[in-house]
């Protein structure tokens, strides 16, 4: 029974390597090999290499200072954080809110066997992510110190204990995430705010941690004994890697106790959480007279309703609406310092600063890409828009307008701030105001065109069109390409006709491209939408 469940679990985890969900068919052998090779390259090559380099820089000084335990403690904490980060969401979706929970629970399978198979999947995910840090750390340590059986055993036990600890914490945090997500069902704005707070804390913590590690290495003689005295648990945790038998015994007992407690609690609550529907409090209906709106307004309202109903959609495709006003404020506060720096670097190229500011604004504008997923997000509901008595172009225009409304006013504010701060000549100032607007319009049209031509209506998880689709990738990387061309051409060619003329030429070319896209959408786009 467990074997069958495990087989299903592994098939699910590694399905994307063998099956292309976008094309709804099995991958070719070459495609599967390419996917696996890419994954190994990212995990072992990029992430493993990064943490391996970090281990090299930490290991020798700490071991030489007699603080090998601190080396293992630091690398262990990083491995735990990465392991949890990598597996907590798979715990949430794979253990608690798996789509087939109802199906499996309805079969004559004991609940603890379902739980075990699911836990093993979570364990492997956590181990995979933690191993990216801890395996290079262990290898570097074993290469640094003289070989001993105690060190080897210590390292192996350290990896095992760490992976079980990651599993325990992932289960706990996955349970919290599952509970929160059920509570926050239909409260996407709150989810966005919580996500933003977490992202902010993550970056704050990341920069602080880097400073802390540097400080620790520089003052290991001072901090080492203090940590050992005041946080003995950390010392014991790190000492496991050195092969200290007492540390191994104590830490094994603690990790086993935590795991046992988690297993007990999970066994008691698994059924309740796995079958929870997140039914929210019933909203009382009060009949009231609704103002009649035009079809265009109704369609626009519907598009905004779709956007604000999904925290994923807002976080991935509309964050520039929030970031551009922040950029505007930063331009006013930090702009003069930045201008001085840019002048020092590009002083010889007249108008370069204006061109670079325009480039920054254009890049920021293109980071809003709601239109790149708007058609695909219709999904199985596409029949509604197709069967309504409105022109298909009206439906598409509503999608276009959302991106324009989200981007262009904020962008104008940032452009005005930049114009006030830069005090450039009139021609450059006007281009500073106009080109980002034209670029925003161009990218809205381009994003919509791409999504219409490559619509994916068969998704089962909305993240597929929002994050993993070709139109979204082109929207993001295309904006980078556009910016590189805009700034690069000017800095390379230093055109004799000046920055203002250059920017207006670029604006004209962009406007012409936007016009072509608009005409295509008007003439062919509607027909294509009706045929989806």
């Amino acid at each position, binding site marked *: 029974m467990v074997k069958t469940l495990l087989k299903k679990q592994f098939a699910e985890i590694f399905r994307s390597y063998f099956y292309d969900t976008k094309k709804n068919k099995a991958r070719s052998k070459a495609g599967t090999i390419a996917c696996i090779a890419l994954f190994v390259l990212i995990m072992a090559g990029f992430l493993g290499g990064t943490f391996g380099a970090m281990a090299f820089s930490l290991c020798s000084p700490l071991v030489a200072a007699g603080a090998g335990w601190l080396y293992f403690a630091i690398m262990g904490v990083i491995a735990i954080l990465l392991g949890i980060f990598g597996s907590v969401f798979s715990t949430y979706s794979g253990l608690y809110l798996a789509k087939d929970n109802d199906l499996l629970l309805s079969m004559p399978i004991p609940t603890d066997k379902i739980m075990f198979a699911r836990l093993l999947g979570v364990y492997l995910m956590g181990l995979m992510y933690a191993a990216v840090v801890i395996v290079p750390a262990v290898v570097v340590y074993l290469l640094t110190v003289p070989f001993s059986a105690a060190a080897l055993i210590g390292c192996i036990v350290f990896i095992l204990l760490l992976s079980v600890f990651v599993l325990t914490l992932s289960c706990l945090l996955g349970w919290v995430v599952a509970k929160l997500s059920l509570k926050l*069902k*239909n409260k996407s704005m709150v989810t966005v705010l919580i996500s933003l707070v977490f992202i902010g804390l993550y970056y704050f913590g990341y920069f602080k941690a880097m400073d802390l590690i540097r400080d620790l290495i520089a003052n290991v003689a001072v901090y080492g004994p203090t940590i050992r005295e005041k946080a003995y648990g950390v010392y014991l945790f790190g000492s496991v890697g050195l092969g200290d038998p007492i540390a191994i015994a104590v830490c094994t007992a603690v990790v086993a106790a935590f795991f046992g407690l988690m297993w007990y609690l999970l066994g008691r609550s698994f059924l309740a959480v796995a079958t929870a529907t997140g*039914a*929210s409090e*019933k*909203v*009382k*209906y*009060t*009949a009231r*007279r*609704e*103002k*009649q*709106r*035009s*079809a265009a*307004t*109704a*369609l626009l*309202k*519907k598009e905004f*309703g*779709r956007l604000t*109903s*999904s925290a994923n959609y807002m976080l991935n495709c509309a964050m520039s609406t929030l970031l551009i006003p922040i950029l505007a404020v930063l331009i006013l506060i930090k702009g003069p310092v930045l201008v001085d720096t840019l002048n020092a670097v590009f002083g010889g190229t007249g108008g370069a600063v204006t061109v670079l500011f325009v480039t920054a604004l254009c890049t920021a504008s293109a980071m809003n890409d709601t239109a790149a997923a708007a058609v695909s997000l219709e*999904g*199985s*509901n596409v*029949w*509604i828009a*197709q*069967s*309504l*008595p*409105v*022109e298909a172009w009206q439906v598409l225009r509503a999608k276009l307008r959302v991106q324009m409304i989200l981007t262009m006013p904020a962008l104008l504010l940032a452009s005005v701030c930049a114009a006030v701060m830069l005090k450039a000549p009139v021609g450059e100032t006007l281009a500073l105001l106009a080109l980002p607007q034209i670029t925003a319009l161009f990218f809205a049209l381009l994003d919509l065109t791409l999504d219409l031509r490559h619509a994916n209506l068969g998704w089962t998880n909305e993240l597929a069109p929002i994050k993993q689709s070709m139109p979204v990738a082109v929207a993001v990387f295309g904006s980078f390409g556009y910016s590189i061309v805009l700034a690069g051409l000017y800095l390379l060619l230093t055109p004799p006709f000046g920055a203002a003329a250059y920017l207006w030429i670029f604006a004209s070319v962009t406007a012409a491209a936007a016009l072509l896209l608009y005409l295509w959408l008007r003439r062919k786009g509607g027909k294509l939408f*009706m*045929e989806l």
Partner: protein
Amino acid sequence: MLRIEHLTKTFGEKVAVDDLSLHIAPGEIYGFIGHNGAGKTTTLRSAVGIQSFDSGEIYICGTSIKADPLACKRQIAYIPDNPDLYEFMSGIKYLNFIADVFGVPSDLRAARIADYAARFELTDDLAQPISAYSHGMKPNPSSGSTPRPPSCSRA
């Protein structure tokens, strides 16, 4: 009310509907029965204007769906077999959205929503998100959003 003349629709080499003709008069209840792949859904999707067809004609109240699809769509309502609705909307928001698109005036829509919601026993759930509706409830907002009882009236 609905007249289909020599409808043919192919998907690649597969002929989904082959020279189908039928006439449904006002007030008639017409059921489609056929084995899997017989072309029932294809015919319906063609008749409501969400799928083009290769040859033939479809008339809704005398208007060709090819020549004036919007006029035809104003006369009919379509409820697919899968109750896929905008789950991010509440029932009442969905009904108001449809009413806006069909240009139903405020007073008239309020009366119709009250009437149909009561008939489908949906009144208490109108403020709930559609995602919270049970499987059986989902087609109801769809049915209630019919702009007018199906009949041949010129918009």
